[in-house]
């Protein structure tokens, strides 16, 4: 583990009976990174996170967080970690302010509860009981608790799942501010857009194995398709273009997509469209997103649940 490496995983394996949930993965996460960990349901995502948090023992392999073994050195390690577990819950009758004071006491920290709640934009609800908070406010309370001990590493397990866009954006702001403070954030999320916006690097796990890793741009470059020209036109235009071009052409729902190899291809395609005389109503070009790459790499697997564009993954 080098000085900048805060999380190191080598050949990590976790078995549940005969089921291998995590199958020999390697990861290295540097200080100050926002690292997104993506995968469909049952891919091994939450198991990996819980091993890193010291909540589960591993079957084999090496794991170090801040130079400590998460399982054996758990009590020493948690003083330096902030964690929002998936679907954060707290005691119904306790207010966010009381909860922050409670956590600060447990960690032996002198925390300014008002300042922490302001940071996560929950100051207005500081004296409301947990049971009366909305889903987004509850997640913000979880985030506030994760910040109480000024952690070096934060594990945020699907922190924005089920939140409205405004609440998601305010949590994104907090994550950005954590990065600017030099903290390392290990983020698992349903939302590929979120990972693409926030993460410095991404790892995609499927069936317990890492299938892609790198910056979102690197992953798209490596695993994404070429640029696509889309036309709003009937399927017979696709037939016409196929007969004239050596490029892949697809037709679906009154949309014709042509994969481009170069900028010159745009002119060739548009010229042929004009020559065909087939009416068309709109044209655009687009590139693969992280979401497109994810779908291509992970696929629509029955045991993992359908992977759709709106919601991807979410291990339970």
């Amino acid at each position: 583990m080098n000085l900048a490496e805060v999380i190191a995983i080598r050949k990590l394996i976790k078995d549940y009976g005969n089921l291998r949930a995590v199958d020999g993965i390697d990861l290295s996460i540097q200080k100050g990174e926002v690292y997104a960990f993506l995968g469909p349901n049952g891919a091994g995502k939450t198991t990996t996170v819980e091993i890193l948090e010291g909540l589960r023992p591993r079957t084999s392999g090496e794991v170090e967080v801040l130079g400590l073994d998460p399982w054996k050195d758990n009590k020493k390690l948690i003083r330096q970690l902030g964690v929002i577990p998936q679907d954060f819950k707290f005691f119904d009758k306790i207010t966010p302010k009381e909860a922050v004071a409670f956590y600060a006491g447990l960690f032996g920290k002198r925390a300014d509860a008002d300042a922490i709640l302001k940071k996560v934009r929950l100051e207005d609800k500081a004296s409301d009981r947990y049971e009366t908070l909305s889903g987004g406010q509850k997640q913000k309370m979880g985030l506030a608790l994760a910040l109480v001990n000024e952690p070096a590493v934060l594990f945020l397990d699907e922190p924005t799942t089920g939140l409205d866009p405004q609440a998601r954006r305010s949590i994104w702001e907090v994550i950005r501010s954590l990065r600017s403070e030099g903290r390392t954030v290990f983020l698992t999320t349903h939302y590929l857009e979120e990972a693409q916006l926030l993460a410095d690097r991404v790892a995609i796990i499927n069936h317990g194995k890492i299938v892609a890793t790198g910056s979102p741009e690197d992953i798209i470059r490596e695993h994404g398709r070429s640029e696509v020209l889309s036309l709003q036109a009937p399927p017979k235009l696709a037939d016409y273009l196929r007969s004239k071009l050596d490029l892949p052409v697809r037709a679906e729902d009154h949309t014709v997509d042509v994969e481009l190899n170069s900028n010159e291809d745009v002119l060739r395609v548009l010229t042929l469209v004009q020559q065909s005389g087939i009416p068309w109503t709109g044209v655009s070009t687009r590139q693969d997103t992280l979401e497109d790459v994810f779908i291509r790499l992970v696929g629509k697997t029955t045991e993992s649940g359908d992977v759709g564009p709106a919601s991807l993954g979410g291990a339970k």
Partner: protein
Amino acid sequence: MNPRRVYLNLGVFAKGYLRSRVGLFFALVFPVILILLFGAIFSNSSTTSVDVYVQNLDHNSPLSLQFLEALNSTKVVHLHFVSPSVGNLSKWLAANDQSDGLVIPAGFAAGYFNKTPVNLTVITNPQDATTSGIVYGAVDGVANYFNLQRANGTVILNVQQLSPPTLGGQSFQYIDYLVPGLIGFSVLTSPMFSMVNISSEYKKEKLFRQLSLTPLTKSEWLSSTIIWYIILTLVSTVIMVAVGQGAFGAKVTLSPLMLPFLVLGPILFTSLGLLAGSISKDPETAAVIGNIITFPMMFLSGTFFPVSLFPPWLVTVAHVLPLFYVIDGLNAAMLYGNVGTALFDMAVVGILALILFIASVRVFQWREN
């Protein structure tokens, strides 16, 4: 164990409990309602009557019959006669699943009239302070009356007990047994029902997991929870004694001997509740297991009626229930001042509390293994 973290968790746990009116109602108000309800129903009833088997070795002399008639008139005992031919009364009682007896010795009347000491033998169950108190108290009271009549208080009729003697010697009303019984009820139900629910719900909602990500340890969490139930039990006890004495004139006293039961009892039942919740897969199963454990114990341990009124086979069942020893000990401490019985019960409750505490800490999972 860090006392500061225990204190912090106690604060949060207490806040949650006090803000939940349901918990507070069942812990403090419900037992008082039961005292008022049962007290009102049974306040005019006669004194509890205990079966006593009498062996009259004085050949049914007129004086011995007069003595037994006086004893019978106390209405706290119900006399049955056993033939002298059966031999040793203690053995006969044991053979017939009975516990309480009285032997009128041969020469009873002659000794009385000659003013020479006569020993009356009372046989009771040493583990049942309630019955011991009633029987010994009644016989001793009548003997004193006879002594007073014949020799101006000089002891002629001397009552000997084959079990450790109680200091009671007075007859008790239903309310006197109800107050310690319902304190036992409170010692059982608040920690049991809460812990069964909490341990299964916290597991389901992953709150234990949440707490495990802080420096709080599971033994600190359990200790603060137990402390809370001890506080709750002490408050509940003071309220119940005040209501019992104030509303119905219950002859119960707050004795230091009670304290171990009010501390060990919550430890025992908090641990038992945690154990039941921990071995359950979900809150629904936990509730069923909790009820299976709690309800028989609630009704068969002398909570609402003295165990001495139960048929012998049910008395045997009561003796395997932990709550029996809490209530029996509270009776010994609050009614009879019977130190021997209280210490015995204390030892039983203490050993059970220790065993269950260790078992619950082992079974209860803070993190996944």
